């Protein structure tokens, strides 16, 4: 076992509006049958990582429910396995996690006890497939202290919600702007890091001593002139879901054949908690095109270019276009939905019409 994993899944994000009221971002539903955290958990499992710590804090109930058994990702092991690190009151600390570095620093005990040489740190809301062994190989080949997985974004992308990096020709990170309002650079950090466990421990001990709390601000940015911090560029699909437009676009990406092939059919496949719902049922009147339909869904109306999560119900005479229906949503007869996201468990009364526009997706949360 070369590495252990730390998944940062404690965050809230106000830019997901009503959708994050009930759940951590890592628990956001994605692509009809997954939760965001399934992607990183599957990546870790498929990379041969046998021990994973999931750091949770904000609205963790729904996430904990999803992680009720570690066996879905093959982490149900006698040796290692999955650890949920919730904030806890100790004689030394009665703080919540005050930042990403603080969350790791408060769990230094966990790092002391392990024996893996490397740590892979990753957020719980990235949608991508990756073999972290490639990053670790790159890390040792470049004699790096910290390797940051980066992505070159297409021109004209708004990168103001990311960390933006500048590298020299060797790939070493020379400058880092965190969420810049404007910048000329297009290379962003995906928030995935590889670091030796012993170095992480000493950096975290320093954070405790100095009362530093944020991994980017207080570790990466402070250390960048002293430590060899390398950028590993990933070329395959990657997105995150931290805003409504990004969340909506990430889901709609799964209607593209190449994205489906990458995630659904190419080995290794993304794993998730198994539900036990009957297959989707298409009743007379159903007319479903260019859509993803999950288990347990019952369809009686028209659905186009939409993502329907498990156990949703679509009544007679409905017209659902360019929308996302969360699990257990109930759409009564003759409802029209365009460019909407319907929160789970919401019951839309007969004949209701809700229309968003592509640039302003409408959220129906109650």
């Amino acid at each position, binding site marked *: 076992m070369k590495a252990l994993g730390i998944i940062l899944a404690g965050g809230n994000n106000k830019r997901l509006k009503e959708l994050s009221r009930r759940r951590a971002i890592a628990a956001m539903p994605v*692509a*009809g*049958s*997954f939760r965001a955290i399934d992607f990183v958990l599957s990546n870790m499992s498929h990379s041969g990582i046998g021990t994973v710590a999931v750091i949770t804090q904000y609205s963790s109930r729904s996430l904990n429910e999803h992680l009720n058994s570690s*066996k879905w990702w093959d982490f149900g092991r006698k040796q290692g396995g999955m650890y949920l690190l919730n904030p806890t009151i100790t004689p030394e600390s009665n703080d919540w996690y005050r930042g990403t570095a603080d969350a790791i620093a408060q769990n230094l005990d966990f790092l002391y006890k392990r024996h893996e040489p490397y740590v892979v740190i990753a957020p719980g809301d990235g949608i991508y497939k990756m073999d972290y062994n490639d990053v670790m190989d790159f890390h040792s080949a470049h004699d790096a202290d910290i390797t940051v997985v980066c992505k070159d974004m297409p021109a004209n992308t708004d990168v103001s919600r990311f960390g933006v990096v500048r590298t020299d020709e060797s790939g070493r990170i020379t400058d880092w702007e965190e969420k810049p309002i404007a910048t000329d650079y297009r290379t962003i950090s995906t928030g995935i890091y590889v670091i030796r466990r012993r170095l992480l421990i000493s950096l975290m001990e320093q954070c405790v001593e100095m009362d530093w709390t944020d991994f980017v601000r207080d570790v990466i940015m402070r250390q960048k002139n002293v430590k060899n911090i390398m950028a590993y560029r990933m070329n395959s699909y990657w997105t995150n879901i931290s805003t409504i437009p990004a969340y909506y676009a990430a889901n709609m990406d799964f*209607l593209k054949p190449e994205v*489906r092939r990458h*995630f*659904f059919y190419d080995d290794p*496949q*993304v*794993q*998730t908690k*198994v539900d*036990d*719902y*009957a*297959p*989707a*049922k*298409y*009743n*007379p*009147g*159903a*007319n*479903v*095109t*260019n*859509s*993803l*339909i*999950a*288990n*347990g869904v*019952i369809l009686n109306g028209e*659905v186009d270019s939409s*993502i*329907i999560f498990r156990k949703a119900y679509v009544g007679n005479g409905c017209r659902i276009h360019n929308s996302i229906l969360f699990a257990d949503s109930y759409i009564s007869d003759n409802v029209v939905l365009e460019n909407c996201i319907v929160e789970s468990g919401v019951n839309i009364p007969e004949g209701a019409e809700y229309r968003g526009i592509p640039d302003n997706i409408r959220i129906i949360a109650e």
Partner: protein
Amino acid sequence: MVKKKMIAMLLAGGQGSRLGVLTADMAKPAVSFGGKYRIIDFPLSNCVNSGVDTVGVLTQYRPLQLNAHIGIGIPWDLDKRVGGVSILPPYEKTGDTGFYSGTANAIYQNLEFIERYNPDYVLILSGDHIYKMDYEEMLAYHQRMGADVTLASMPVPWEEASRFGVVITDEDKRITAFQEKPKEPKSNLASMGIYIFNWKLLHDALVTLKDVPGCDFGKHVIPYCFEQNKKLYTYEFTGYWKDVGTLSSYWQANMELVDLVPEFNLYEEFWKIYTETNTMTPEYMAPTAKAERAIICGGSEIFGTVSHSVIGSNVQIGEGSVIEDSIIMEGVRIGKNVRMKKAIVADNTVIGDGTVIGEGEYAPSHLDTRVYNSELATIAANSRIPGGVSIGLNTAISGATEESDYPNGRLEDGGYIIKAGEKA
């Protein structure tokens, strides 16, 4: 000492030869049903939902698919420290090669397994029926009546009674006589092949009858219990129960699932049916797709038209294809512009572009009229059908077929192609 009140023994070793080529590669309990399920999921889920947490599954005929499906029982929460699911294949012993010669003989050969759990009652189940039943309720009935043996039965139409073992009872539901497939039935209460025995009695019966060739519950054990003047009762069941032992009953039971409100409802939260699946993805309906009166499972990609059909997991249906009144099982790949009506296509079969299946007129089967006697075209698992051929009614295909297997591009009504060896 470990003690379980009741453990279940599930008989899953039979071939189910009347399902024809569907059971060429797998035992009948492993045949898929309702898209994502396999027949054995129903009794296994019933066990778990009834609080029976120790199940021995007796396998014999082609067990690979069944073993792979059951594994260590995770989907049914039967991966337990004490109890859970155990697969019980026949085994070699001193002076005996050991295949199971009959239903009761199979249990006899596993007496040691039952003894490990020291049960008061043993529930005997078969792996070939579709139903939801609370065995706990049946046990409560068994105890209330002070029965030695309780046998589940259900009323069937009188004209069908001669296909079953029927029980004749007094007004207290105590069984007074038993007829096995009678020409002139005296009752329409058909035995469902579900028994609860007091363990001591079952043990004595199996040991006493151990040398009976082909020892069978209906033929030997039940008559023995009668002779011993034991108290046999029947537990009358009135819910949905389907025998899927023939191709047409199998097809019919699948098709009932697509009814607007199916009699057998899989969409209720209560009494879920569990199954093993590696498919976690949703299905994709393409811009050219059309599906009505159908159930479609995860991972499938539909570009054609599906009407009144059951489509399994990870199925691909190409553009321009029209699938009607058919059952398509897991992993089947159907090319473009295929026309299909009243077909059963088993797991992982590949069908080429432009092929037509199920057009013609009924003709008696040249292969086996006992098995193939409906309009259905039946295609075995892992078969290959080339593009551009036409396949008639009441036909059977197994194996990787080539264009040269179809004279003039046609498999006539009632015809068959059975090829051993190479698979698709």
